[in-house]
């Protein structure tokens, strides 16, 4: 079916030659001599995407994301395995491809459209749509070299997405351009999603992946190491970032109510116990808006650690960071702790949060962030609920203190001010 993607045991190797003439030597010997090293940018990649699915592709630099995209768009050939993409594909690999600076926006749009396999008539028919979406006005008849970066990006995006493709491949391009246009792009992509376009989206921005995708793939060192819900894969990805710094164990453990969580670290310090308590010191999982909560963490050291930092992070339903801080910033913990030592930390936080479910993540590390030395990072260890309290109704993620001053103006009744305040 159009829009299906089927990737099976895909591998791509690049040949590395120590000297330029080594390649010539191989050619002249009819490939009997082998003077190159194979560098596998991708290997053993297998996954399938049914038409209409939106998948986020994440991974560190050099993980093989770009290579995979190039193979899927067909600009480069796999060394082994197969990649099948059914239907018309539009790729936003790097916007502004092939734009000729001396030609007008319209002429460039025409060639770019033809490059995508559209006929002159089809591009011409789409042109008003393209111009309207790009919002560059009179500039459409001016040479592209007179464009700002934002204008060129808008035009390129408008051309690439003028006709709904069966498969849309987006590489980190939405970050270019202003916020307004970014939203417009996301709206268009959302529209495609609803109309059944398969979307493969590469980004370093976890929020964008969470908002746009039903599923995420994590590449590391050319291998597909995670395939699942964006939330969970992104947690694992965060763990991966920390892993670069220290020797780590990554484990996903089952916690309450069947939720899985990710826990990783070098475990020189270990979180033995975490509890979330209400103002009275009793364990609690539901709070009214504006209640005080206490995160109590008991940490046990297995080797010598100097000045540990303990941090907490609250995330919302879809995994966005809502609030996080740590002892380094609030009140640094000093001193050295040896094997067997224990530390109990209480974070008292006023939960001025919007109504809904949240998760709590707790970590022990050194310095200001977990990127320095990550001893123990326990993702989403506790889930809790915020319920409406006595405050006036509101919407959103946070409950900000609000004051309202109304000053009526008029000839009668003089001047009176009424003030009301919410929490």
């Amino acid at each position, binding site marked *: 079916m159009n829009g299906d993607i089927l990737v099976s045991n895909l591998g791509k190797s690049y040949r590395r030659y120590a000297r330029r003439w080594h390649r010539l030597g191989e050619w002249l010997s009819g490939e009997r001599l082998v003077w190159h090293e194979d560098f596998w940018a991708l290997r053993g990649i297998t996954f399938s995407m049914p038409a209409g699915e939106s998948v986020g592709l994440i991974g560190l630099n050099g993980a093989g994301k770009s290579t995979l995209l190039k193979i899927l768009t067909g*600009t480069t050939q796999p060394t082994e395995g197969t990649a099948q993409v059914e239907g018309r594909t539009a790729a936003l690999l790097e916007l502004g491809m092939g734009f000729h600076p001396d030609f007008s926006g319209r002429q460039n749009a025409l060639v770019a459209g033809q490059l995508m396999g559209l006929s002159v008539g089809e591009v011409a028919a789409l042109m008003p749509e393209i111009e309207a979406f790009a919002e560059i006005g009179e500039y459409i008849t001016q040479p592209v070299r007179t464009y700002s970066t934002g204008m060129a990006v808008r035009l390129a995006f408008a051309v690439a997405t003028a006709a709904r493709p069966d498969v849309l491949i987006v590489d980190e391009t939405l970050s270019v351009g202003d916020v307004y246009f970014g939203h417009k792009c996301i709206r268009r992509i959302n529209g495609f999603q609803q109309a059944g376009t398969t979307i493969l989206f590469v980004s370093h921005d976890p929020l964008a992946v969470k908002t746009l995708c039903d599923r995420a793939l994590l590449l590391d060192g050319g291998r597909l190491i995670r395939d699942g819900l964006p939330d969970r894969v992104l947690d694992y990805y965060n763990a991966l970032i920390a892993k670069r710094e220290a020797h780590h164990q990554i484990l996903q453990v089952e916690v309450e109510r069947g939720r899985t969580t990710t826990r990783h670290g070098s475990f020189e310090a270990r979180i033995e116990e975490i509890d979330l308590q209400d103002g009275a010191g009793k364990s609690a999982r539901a709070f009214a808006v504006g209640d005080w909560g206490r995160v109590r963490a008991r940490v046990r050291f297995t080797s010598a650690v100097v000045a540990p930092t303990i941090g907490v992070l609250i995330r919302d339903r879809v995994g966005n960071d809502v609030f996080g801080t740590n002892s380094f910033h609030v009140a640094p913990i000093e001193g050295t702790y040896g094997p067997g030592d224990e530390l109990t930390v209480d974070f008292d936080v006023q939960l001025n949060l919007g109504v809904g479910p949240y998760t709590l993540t707790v970590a022990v590390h050194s310095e200001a962030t977990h990127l320095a030395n990550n001893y123990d990072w326990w993702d989403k260890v506790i889930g809790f609920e915020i319920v409406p309290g006595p405050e006036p109704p509101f919407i959103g993620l946070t409950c900000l203190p609000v004051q309202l001053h109304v000053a009526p103006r008029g000839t009668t009744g003089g001047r009176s001010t009424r003030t009301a305040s919410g929490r």
Partner: protein
Amino acid sequence: MKLVGRLKAVWAYRGFIVGMVARDFRGRYLGSILGAAWAVLNPVAQIVIYTLIFSQVMRARLPNMQDTLAYGLYLCAGALTWNYFVEVLLRSQTVFLEQANMLKKAKFPRVTLPTYVFLSATLNFAIVWGLFLLFLLGSGRWPGRALVALLPLLLIQQTLAIGLGLALGVVNVFFRDVAQAVGIGLQFWFWLTPIVYPLSVVPETLRKLMAWNPLYALVVSYQGIVVEHRWPIWSDLWLMCALTLVVAVVSGRVFRHLAPAMVDEL
């Protein structure tokens, strides 16, 4: 069959190819006031130099020819067709590097690139040759029916040019030395072909050796048509045909074998 597939791809992308040719043509005169007029002025200057300057001012003569313009026509017949040959060869040799950006970012049949280069060069040649024919007509030297022989000759010549250009173009992506070497090689080839000098200045023994240059018979045929209104001696062209055939086959194989890996080197 592969070839049929290629032709189909070219047809499917005809809009793109025509667009590229138009862009190429317009791009050359972009930002100029006279615009496309330069496309005519340039070849006019070329023809004027070859004919009027050489024959009238420098009084260059072809031996055994009474016509004062004969040498000028001789020069045009060889040089204009040679330029066409070289333009296709050199441009298809660099087109993959020039359009690296497109090749890396979009999926389209690669064969469309040499195709557009060929068409673009053909357009230029059509203009210059058209003007030359007008000149022949105006000066009362219209070659008549022998002109028809030009078509098969040009077809063979350009098949060779594309074949060489395509193979060299693909290899040039891997070893940039190719373009340099070809530049030098073409200079030798030009002077080893009787384009500027008449055959009669070459000693008899050397002339036999020169006949092994595949382009020799071809250029001599052009000159025969234009200057003497004489049909080509088809049997002399066997070497050229053989070379073209070999090059076409080898080039097709090189392209098939190396083109997929090309984008990884760009």
